């Protein structure tokens, strides 16, 4: 954190949310969100339960399309092509081909370790054994899991520990070389040691991918992120460099939340 902070205008953008509203049926869960996502940086979304941080995250890969009655207004443009990924003419499957997601609870598929990591590639029509083997190994190495599982790739994924399962899910998400990796409270179901290893991993992964992480753990946001966004009841209250937000927040509400007086 000692490094001098570059001017925000000079940072390359990976995505930009503009005037984003989101509705679950009649209930408006997100209100006029404007927020940049900078390339190859970690952006943390924090805020009390029900503030809309997960809802916001799930807009990026159009997960809300899976359920009826959900509606987006406004846009999230994906760079460099500058396409509004929320546009009705954009196929959500194509969006999900470019963004991967890691969920709150590890959710490995009922398949072998190898097939879990190969899943995204197979879905994309890659079936050549040599390519799959290469990509699976690379993804498992990137997720710091290779050494633990290299001799048991044909074991069922359920046999792994919780922390290993979550790293497997990260490997699965990485195997398709996504442009943005979305983390939805990835350590909330894990013990402190597994949490530490996932956090370390996230810090390493930002070399290769843009990361957006929802967390209810403020220390975690402070440890892993470059930028932090504080949300409250569907609104973005404050966005900025993580150390600015944590050391000298501009908004008194943010300060109250961060210092633990609220939320």
């Amino acid at each position, binding site marked *: 954190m000692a490094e001098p902070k570059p001017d925000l205008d000079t940072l390359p953008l990976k995505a930009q949310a503009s005037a984003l509203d989101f509705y679950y049926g009649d209930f408006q869960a997100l209100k006029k969100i404007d927020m940049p996502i900078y390339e190859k940086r970690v952006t943390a979304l924090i805020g009390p339960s029900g503030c809309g941080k997960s809802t916001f995250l799930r807009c990026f890969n159009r997960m809300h399309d899976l359920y009826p009655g959900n509606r987006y207004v406004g846009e999230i443009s994906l760079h460099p092509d500058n396409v509004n990924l929320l546009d009705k003419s954009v196929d959500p499957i194509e969006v999900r081909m470019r963004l991967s997601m890691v969920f709150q609870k590890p959710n490995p598929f009922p398949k072998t370790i190898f097939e879990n990591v190969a899943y995204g590639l197979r879905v994309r029509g890659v079936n050549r054994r040599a390519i799959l083997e290469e990509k699976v190994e690379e993804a498992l190495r990137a997720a710091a899991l290779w050494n633990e599982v290299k001799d048991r790739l044909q074991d069922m994924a*359920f046999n792994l520990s919780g922390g290993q399962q979550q790293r497997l899910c990260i490997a699965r998400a990485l195997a398709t070389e996504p442009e943005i990796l979305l983390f939805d409270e990835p350590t909330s179901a894990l013990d402190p040691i597994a949490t530490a290893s996932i956090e370390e991993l996230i810090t390493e992964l930002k070399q290769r991918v843009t990361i957006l992480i929802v967390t209810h753990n403020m220390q975690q946001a402070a440890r892993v992120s470059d930028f932090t966004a504080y949300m409250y009841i569907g609104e973005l209250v404050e966005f900025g460099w993580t150390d600015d937000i944590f050391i000298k927040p501009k908004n008194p509400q943010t300060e109250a939340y961060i210092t633990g007086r609220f939320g």
Partner: protein
Amino acid sequence: MSANRLSHRASRHVKERIIESILFLAALVSVATTLGIVYILVKESVVFFNQVPLWDFLTDTQWTPLFDDAHFGIIVLLSGTLVSSGVALAVAIPLGTLIAIYLSEFASARAREFAKPVLELLSGVPTIIYGYFALLFLTPLLQKLIPGLPGFNLLSAGIVMGIMIVPYVASISEDAMRAVPMSLREGSYAMGATRLQTALKVVFPGALSGIAAAYILGISRAVGETMILAVAAGMQPNLTWNPTESAATITAFIVQVALGDLPHGSVGYQTIFAAGLTLMLLTLVFNVLGHMMRRRFREQY
């Protein structure tokens, strides 16, 4: 005050004990009935096996219990049961699985609300009606396709029996697939998978043991089915593995003898208990297998 309270609780306790005993008795009736059936089957079968060696029962290739030269090869009846059940499963498993995949993964909530009761209605149709449907509708139809098909045949009975089991297989498989956690589906969609890929590559394998249980429970229904076979497959014992022939199944034979005028206590009459015991063991094995798989499936999540 406190003594009053204590006595009040005690009276409630007695009431609860009475209700508990009534419920227990109700449960006991069904358990006792089952035990009674097993007891009679075993007792009467012992009488049978005192006259016919078990070895002959298992290895003889003729079933002529009512002739002077009596033979008691259960394999003859078993072949009819297995062939008709095989045909039924060849219909019910693919159809039932497809319906389950559709209902669980593709159908809208509305379509599901409509289709599920209809399916359950289908499983409430009396099997005698299915039997006549096979004999009077399906068999003539099949006879046009397969010349020389006898009026009674295992194929027609088996197909209709399969249709009868479809709702059963579909309903249990659908339950199993719906029990697969939403988080797995979301994980699959998040990887860019389509609905079909998610259904086939994640939900189906995730529900596999539950689906296998549905298949096995379907098998045990097919094996125990009586009316359709008695009506449409014929009563002639016939050792065959060819579904286009006519053959009696274990169940059809039991009906025939039970309704006939054989004297109680004769070996011919005793055969139905040995046949019944065989049938019960067969369905018992399948039921136990099916429930074991169901339990294993529940533990998985």
